[in-house]
């Protein structure tokens, strides 16, 4: 075996580390460790001169293992790996000791902090000796894409991709395309007709030569991995197998049914309808009661189901704007009608909505605030001598008064919840859901349309309730991600994976169900397990579940970790 020649670099991070850690002493102690050829401390290791210093050492002293003690590897591991590559050394022959976030920033006692830093460096040095060169691997990408869901998000994504001449399979569980948006009459804040936007897209998608639309269909089975998926789609009796390289999930959401909130008397008293039902009414071009008369008093109750710990703990995000939109539509159609906004919080976010809010207020719409934490508004049938059929009892928060709102039509702004199918689909796709059953993105801030499963993207309201514009932009973002991958033609896959030593594997098959990604397959003829390293994400759970030691976890091998334990416990310095 080659002689191990380790270089150790202790970063001061200006004073960030140097203030609480005696970096010179750490370097001195590291220098005494077996295999360490050079140990230096430097002001900023991540800076160009810092990296150059390391690169120069590697080349001049032909170092073959590097340890940097600095900030968290989550910040600069990549940086230093690149530096190793630059020096012609495999980037995985590198280990970091986190002496900033986990030492200098959290300990004041300089002596103890220094001691701890020395231990962590020793651990890294012991570990790096056992680290092996790993090579990046990539797979070809199938240029076809599967889009699940034919709402505005799915349609947009499908169109974007198809327009570049790539194949798209669009799977919609309903009998027609359009999704929630089809149910919407006009969009806020400008009250444009939704169909004006939606229909041309549906038109283009349905007739596009590169898009195959599957209606009344569902994805029931998925195998393969990023770039090379195979999916089974059920449509009515028939089934078809499709091959594609990426998946865009755009399954949207569904409106909340207000029946459980008995205080709103939905379906119990006449002329109490949901926001969705009201949209349909508007699409028919009129506003009327069961009696076909026009209402004189219209009350709009907000947050029905939303922001309610017993139902939908979250904000459904579009209801407030829609309620304002309704007020305007009512005023347009029935200028004499009295409109009441019974709200908990006005959240008129998104471009142009705040303006819509003040505009609406100016049109004589009355805003009444109720206490969501306290007693919710209660709808009762009006008595004989009252002028309307319905009365809403509520405590008005701003005035602090108990008031009764008279209404002949009540619109319940129902919240939006995840599809029932979200669980089943999440299992098929191997993506996870949040506590509210919406799909979880890979990173809430920095990677909002990707998921932890490579090649699977989530767009629109299946990730959380959204307005049309957000859904569209997510769809285009995902499309761009997919197209980028298709054009690159290959995709890099995880290097830190598990692998099986077939000469040791006894074929007990304990590992098979341990893998959360189904990356482990038992080869019957060979009587051994085999890890599909493209699917494997490198969690290493199988390595710790393997009773024979046949499964190894690259870059986190038993030898490496045990050596690190030995290192951090090694008493170098008696305090």
């Amino acid at each position: 075996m080659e002689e191990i020649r380790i270089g150790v670099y202790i970063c001061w991070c200006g004073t960030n580390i140097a203030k609480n850690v005696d970096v010179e002493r750490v370097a001195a102690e590291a220098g005494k460790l077996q295999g360490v050829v050079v140990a230096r401390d430097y002001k900023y290791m991540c800076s160009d001169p810092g990296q150059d210093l390391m690169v120069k050492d590697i080349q001049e002293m032909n170092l073959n293992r590097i340890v940097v003690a600095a900030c968290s590897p989550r910040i600069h591991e990549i940086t230093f790996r690149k530096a190793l590559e630059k020096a012609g050394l495999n980037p995985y022959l590198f280990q970091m000791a986190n002496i900033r976030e986990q030492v200098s920033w959290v300990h004041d006692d300089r002596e103890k902090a220094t001691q701890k830093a020395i231990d962590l460096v020793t651990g890294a040095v012991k570990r790096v000796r056992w680290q092996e060169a790993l090579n990046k691997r990539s797979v070809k990408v199938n240029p076809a894409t599967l889009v699940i869901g034919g709402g505005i998000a799915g349609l947009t994504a499908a169109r974007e991709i198809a327009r570049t001449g790539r194949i798209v399979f669009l799977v919609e569980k309903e009998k027609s395309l359009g999704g929630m948006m089809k149910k919407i009459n006009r969009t806020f804040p400008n009250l444009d007709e939704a169909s004006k936007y939606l229909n041309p897209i549906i038109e283009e998608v349905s007739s596009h030569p590169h898009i195959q639309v599957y209606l009344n269909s569902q994805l029931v089975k998925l195998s393969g991995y990023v770039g090379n998926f195979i999916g089974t789609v059920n449509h009515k009796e028939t089934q078809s197998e499709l091959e594609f390289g990426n998946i865009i999930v755009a399954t949207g959401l569904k409106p909340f049914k207000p029946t459980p909130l008995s205080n709103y008397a939905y379906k119990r008293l006449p002329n109490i309808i949901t926001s969705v039902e009201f949209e349909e009414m508007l699409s028919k071009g009129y506003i009327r009661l069961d009696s076909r008369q026009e209402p004189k008093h219209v009350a709009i109750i907000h947050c029905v189901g939303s922001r309610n710990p017993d139902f939908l703990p979250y904000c459904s995000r579009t209801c407030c704007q829609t309620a304002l939109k309704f007020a305007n539509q009512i005023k347009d159609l029935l200028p004499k009608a009295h409109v009441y906004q019974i709200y908990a919080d006005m959240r008129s976010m998104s471009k142009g909505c705040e303006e819509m809010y003040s505009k609406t207020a100016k049109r004589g719409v009355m805003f009444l605030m109720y206490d969501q934490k306290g007693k919710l508004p209660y709808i009762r049938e009006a008595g004989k001598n009252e002028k309307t059929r319905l009365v809403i009892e509520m405590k008005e928060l701003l005035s602090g008064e108990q008031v009764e709102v008279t209404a002949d039509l009540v619109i319940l702004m129902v919240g939006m919840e995840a599809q029932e199918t979200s669980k089943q689909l999440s299992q098929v796709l191997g993506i996870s859901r949040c506590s509210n059953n919406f799909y979880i993105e890979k990173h809430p801030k920095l990677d909002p349309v990707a998921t932890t499963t490579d090649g699977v993207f989530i767009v629109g309201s299946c990730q959380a309730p959204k307005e049309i514009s957000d859904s569209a932009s997510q769809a285009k973002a995902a499309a761009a991600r997919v197209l980028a991958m298709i054009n690159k033609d290959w995709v890099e896959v995880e290097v830190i994976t598990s692998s099986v030593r077939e000469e040791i594997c006894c074929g007990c098959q304990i590992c098979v169900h341990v893998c959360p990604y189904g990356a482990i397959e038992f080869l019957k003829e060979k009587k051994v397990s085999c890890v599909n390293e493209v699917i494997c994400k490198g969690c290493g759970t199988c390595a710790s579940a393997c009773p024979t030691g046949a499964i190894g976890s690259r870059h986190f091998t038993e030898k490496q970790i045990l050596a690190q334990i030995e290192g951090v416990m090694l008493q170098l310095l008696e305090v």
Partner: protein
Amino acid sequence: MEFEPKIVAFLCNWCSYTGADLAGTSRMKYSPSLRIIRVMCSGRICPTFIFKAFQEGADGVLVCGCHPGDCHYNEGNYKCLRRFKLIEKYIRQMGIEPDRIRLAWISASEGKLFAELANEMTQTIKNLGPSTIKAQLEQMV
């Protein structure tokens, strides 16, 4: 001089380790007794690691993973939990105080909780006193 425990802590990369980093970026102070070792997932943690830590003289061993349901790899933390329960039973049978090992869930946003955990565990170990395991293993009589 006062007994300063050495606790080997195994942290998963995605939640716990990031949580520990957050404690740092938020400049929270906690006991210097921990020696953190990073693994990708708490599901990687094998009994061997824990036994080895004690053999090398650790006064305690801390294992941290993502909260149930939040595992970056879906279920690794559950697998860790299952093993841990068995390890606890074994440790007891071997005459080691069960309080010397601890499993805790720390999310990426729980820097404060991590700092508190570190202090708490350090206190527990201080109350137990230094581990004699290494010494006992080294003497063959």
